[in-house]
């Protein structure tokens, strides 16, 4: 029993020193010696060794019920797991201490690691009693605890390396709603401000993984406007009105090879336009509420869907030329790449181009991505034909006899982003079916009953209509 008592004393000493560790070497958010960071960076690598060993222990114990040799091995693996856990904990602590990491997740992860090491030591101590049959409940209980702590600590570690929204980012929306994850940071007082629309998302994308609530490197938190002004160990991140003195801007515009360059560690750099926004915003007093900044537009132009390639029409070139000679309407290549498709031009035959002629185009329909039928003689009957032009992205119908009664027929044109109905008889009511066309961004209704021109100040007339 002497060595048992010795083991208990040694274990309790280790436990006590583990508990005191954060008090002795306080994580003060200041980077320390480089060798600490060098060794510490092996933590993410080494961490997988104790994880594997710890998971192995309960497996061996359970299997040991049938094969006693495995149970014997479990004791050995547990010792190894314990040693590996202490070693990895040391490396992890060096990493946090050396690089000056602070933040909620960092401290959770640290305490998780400490708790895990302690639990494993307790397992080691109670296992003797368990295998002798003197105390049967403690060891399994500690082992279960160790597994739960392991799971939780590992998750915190994952959040540190990959970001806290790593798991939830691509979670299906219904699950997300149930789980009620809120990964978007508060927009601030004015959701329409330049800060909220441009600066905030940029910081969210590039900075807050390391300078947020979960990880606060250099004591800098960029997940709030106050955090920006307060700054970190090196001083305020921004000096309103003075881009040159603003560390945030300085760091992201340094040469990528500079030691102080941000985003660090090979993360994607800011785009020139993004640094431009930052500079313009800071120059103009870095307000959290102002909606406009000189020289930068924050009008949200929704991204267009990428064009769908069309098939190769080169085999039809002969037919196309023949058709052009016959009726005069032109099918012009968008570019030298056949998959970019064809444009139907009727500029020079507009007066003679009618429903019948458009119908002749039907066999080229799968290749036509834009149809300019402005001021032609086509009528509502042509909408039936056009509904088969499924690759159309832009459709010009201005100045035609289209009434709008049959616009619903355009519904199959899923690629359509541009529709010009200027100077037709289209009314607001007729436009309703267009609302269902999800890709349709630009609808022009100049000079129609749907958008009467105010002669008092024509200049104020806006161009985009239905959307």
């Amino acid at each position, binding site marked *: 029993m002497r060595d048992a008592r010795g083991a208990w004393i040694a274990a309790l000493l280790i436990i006590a020193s583990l508990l005191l560790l954060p008090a002795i070497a306080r994580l003060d958010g200041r980077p320390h010696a480089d060798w600490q960071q060098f060794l510490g960076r092996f933590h993410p690598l080494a961490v997988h060794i104790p994880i594997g060993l710890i998971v192995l222990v309960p497996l061996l114990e359970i299997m040991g019920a049938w094969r006693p040799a495995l149970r014997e091995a479990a004791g050995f693996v547990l010792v190894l797991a314990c040693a590996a856990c202490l070693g990895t904990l040391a490396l992890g602590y060096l990493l946090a201490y050396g690089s000056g990491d602070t933040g909620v997740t960092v401290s959770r992860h640290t305490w998780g690691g400490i708790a895990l090491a302690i639990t494993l030591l307790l397992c080691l101590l109670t296992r003797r009693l368990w295998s002798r049959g003197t105390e049967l409940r403690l060891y399994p209980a500690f082992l279960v605890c160790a597994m739960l702590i392991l799971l939780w600590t590992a998750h915190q570690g994952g959040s540190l390396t990959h970001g806290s929204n790593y798991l939830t980012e691509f979670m299906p929306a219904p699950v997300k709603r149930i789980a009620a994850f809120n990964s978007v940071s508060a927009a601030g007082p004015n959701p329409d401000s330049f800060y909220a629309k441009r600066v905030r998302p940029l910081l969210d994308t590039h900075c807050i993984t390391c300078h947020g609530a979960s990880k606060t490197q250099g004591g800098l938190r960029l997940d709030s406007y106050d955090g920006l002004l307060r700054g970190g160990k090196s001083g305020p991140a921004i000096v309103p009105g003075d881009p040159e003195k603003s560390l945030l801007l300085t760091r992201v515009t340094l040469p990528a090879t500079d030691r102080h360059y941000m985003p660090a560690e090979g993360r994607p750099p800011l785009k*020139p*336009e993004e640094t431009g926004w930052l500079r313009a915003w800071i120059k*103009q007093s870095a307000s959290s509420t102002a*909606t*406009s*900044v*000189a*020289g*930068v*537009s*924050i*009008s949200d132009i929704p991204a267009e869907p990428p*064009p769908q390639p069309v098939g190769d029409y080169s085999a039809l*070139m*002969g037919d196309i*030329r023949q058709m*052009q*000679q016959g009726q*005069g309407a*032109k099918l*012009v*290549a*968008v*570019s*030298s*790449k056949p998959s*970019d498709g064809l444009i139907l*031009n009727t*500029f*020079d*035959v507009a007066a003679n181009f009618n429903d019948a002629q458009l119908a002749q185009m039907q066999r080229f329909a799968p290749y036509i991505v834009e149809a*300019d039928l*402005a*001021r032609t003689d086509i009528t509502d009957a042509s909408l039936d034909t056009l509904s088969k032009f499924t690759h159309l992205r*832009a459709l*010009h119908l*201005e100045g035609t006899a289209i009434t709008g009664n049959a616009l619903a027929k355009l519904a199959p044109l899923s690629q359509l982003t*541009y529709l*010009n109905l*200027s100077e037709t008889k289209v009314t607001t009511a007729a436009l309703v079916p267009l609302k269902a066309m999800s890709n349709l961004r*630009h609808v*022009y209704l*100049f*000079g129609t009953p749907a958008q009467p*021109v105010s*002669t008092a*100040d*024509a*200049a104020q*007339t*806006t*161009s985009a209509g239905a959307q």
Partner: protein
Amino acid sequence: MKQHPLCSDCERDNSIADLPIPAGIKNEWAALETRRRFLGRSGKVLGWAALASLFGEAAPRGDASGGDAKVPNRPTAREDLKLPHFAPKAKRAIYLFMSGGPPQIDLLDYKPNLAALYNKDIPDSVRGSQQLTGMTAGQAHFPVAPSHWAFKRYGQSGTYVSDLLPYTARMVDDLTIIKSTNTDAINHEPAIMLMNTGNMNAGKPCLGSWLSYGLGSMNDNLPTFIVLQTKVNSKENNQPVSSRLWGSGFLSSEYAGVGLRSGGDPVLYLADPAGVDREVRRRMLDAVEQINRQTLQDIGDPETNARIAQYEMAYRMQASVPELADLSKEPQSTWDLYGPESKEPGTFAYNCLLARRMAERGVRFTQIYKRGWDVHDNVTGVLPIICGETDRGCYALVTDLKRRGLLDDTLVIWAGEFGRTVYSQGGLTPENYGRDHHPRCFTTWMTGGGVRPGITYGETDDYSYNVVQDPVHVRDFNATILHCLGIDHNKFTYKFQGLDQKLTGPTPASIVPGLLA
């Protein structure tokens, strides 16, 4: 020698040897003659080869029956050139050319610090080694002349615009303003040639001709490239504008810009004379074409081809131009937008309205020239006049294109050939000053298909003398324009004089990604 079909006398060719001229000239002629004959013969082959490539698979029009406004058999896409290189954002362009050099400091390049420096000499460190024109090189002082006009911020972008441009101010959120445009030339002719053709010397095709050649026509009834000149105002200092600015250089004359007159008939002698009906005209043109084809066969000069195409174009313009210039069906909203001046042919506003109508009708490239920006003196007297003439037209054109849905695929460009100096040319008084030519920085803008709206690109120093950030050289400016139209400026070349000629010239040029949408 073959006989022309309309030629009744069939004498043998005159021999130069029989003529009473000095023997030296005869010898020279004989040498030339041999060379000409040789080229003529090979030209036959080359000419037809060129023709065949122009006409694609379709055979040249053989029948002379001449249906009215028959569309020729030319392929509309430049299949042989493989253009456009990629899907373009803009299909057409309208270039508002501010000839003479608009003073950026009085219009869009706001320099608030200059007021405190009134009449102080511009520091030598700022002037650097910049050569000056003969007009100011001899000045003992180079006193800073702050702008006479106040600037205010406009739009969501908060862009500063001078009080001279109240209409431009309304559309700043649509514009891509480039403060850092710079050029190599300090005098009008080289600078305006460089801006238009990419070379200071005459003989290179201009932007419009390159586009016309490379992208071809969208409407066979109108020229691919049209030039509109604005009526001259005698109160302004009007530098001459010559047709070589819209010339096709070494490209076929077919690609040269077609100028419409600023007053009276847009095209002279376009209407058939009394007694000549459309059918007679057609027959006459068919006969002329036959003769031209004969000549082409004999001599093989591609310019004959251009002539054939131009006769045909002129015939079709007989119907299309009157329709283009007929503004009687324009709604009242047009006049409200463009202002009363736009009813008067030849004004800038009228030309802007025509440019919109051309855009609607598929004209590939329209260039409007406005002269008079050469304000060497009396800036406060003259500048309000020029701005008054142009400001509303620019705004109306952009707004009209935008509301009609045409700005999405039309690139509008506003530029002069250079900027003007911050220091006063001649006497500086609190009321007036003059500005000399300045190549190191000038302000231009673009809008529409392919460029990013609502931004100001580039920055100049406190004197608007040097570019301090994001310079855009004329070459880069032109490369960016080509890019918007789907053309890679490095790949779009034409072999001439042993060089793969291109708009941006042999000096490396690059597109400016910061300007692109």
